[in-house]
């Protein structure tokens, strides 16, 4: 929490998604990385966003139920015949 001139912590947390998406312009990117290099709080925040993405990514997609699949395949066969 040293370099507060260019970008405050409160401003940095709002840029995290743009940073991770590679959408920051050159100047913002430089300010972002310079801030991170000196700020434990923001480094931890970014780490927690990355942890969030990892845990969300470990959730399971919704599976198609057997009944729904059977109904759709029947509909497909009917459609084929029509």
């Amino acid at each position, binding site marked *: *929490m040293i370099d*507060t001139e260019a970008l*405050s*912590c*409160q*401003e940095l*947390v*709002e840029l*995290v*998604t*743009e940073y991770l*998406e590679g*959408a920051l312009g050159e100047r913002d990117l430089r300010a972002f990385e310079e801030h991170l290099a000196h*700020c*434990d*709080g*923001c480094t*931890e*925040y970014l*780490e*927690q*966003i990355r*942890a*969030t*993405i*990892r*845990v*969300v*990514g*470990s*959730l*399971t*997609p*919704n*599976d*198609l*139920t057997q009944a*729904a*699949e059977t*109904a*759709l*395949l029947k*509909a*497909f*066969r009917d*459609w*084929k015949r029509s």
Partner: protein
Amino acid sequence: MTLPDDELVAALRAGDEAAFAAVVRDWHSGLLRVARIFTPSRAVAEEVVQETWLRVLGALDRFEGRSSLKTWVFRILVNTAKTRAQRESRSIPFSALHDPARVPEAAVDPDRFLADDHPHHPGGWESPPRELPEDRLIASETRAVIERAIEGLPASQRAVISLRDIEGWSSDEVRNALDLSEVNQRVLLHRARARVRQALEDYLTPENA
């Protein structure tokens, strides 16, 4: 494993049941998540997905390939879901999906930062996040907390984070399926991740909350 688009369309038109079954399975989770934006429950969303595939089959001969098949199917899903929601006269905040940037929302509670006129660190952390215990991060209880946090998000945020981070879609795929601008897709993702992170922090380092 999904075939290239032209082969897939040809296979479906030729009545290839295996190709149909594969695509129905592959896209199901994403279809369900988008349907949930417009529907009150998972059960209704499942019905909307079924109805969508029937409409897709009915319209397949008219598919011209101007978008990808996937985008086309998701457009039909959104229309089906909206029609269904209107029929059941539920009001859906479409505007929130199309211009979320108009409604400001902070990623982190402003009270956790020092005031703008603080002499040394204006806008700096007053209550910074603390390191999360890595071993508990991967516990199934933690996943349950995260699942509940996602379930509690506004519908459009829930759809975007689910498609991006659970289903692994690219931002372009999400934008096309939901007809969102690049900025709005990112705003929704940003808010969703910020809220889920907060839930994670509240659960794992409650002394900080």
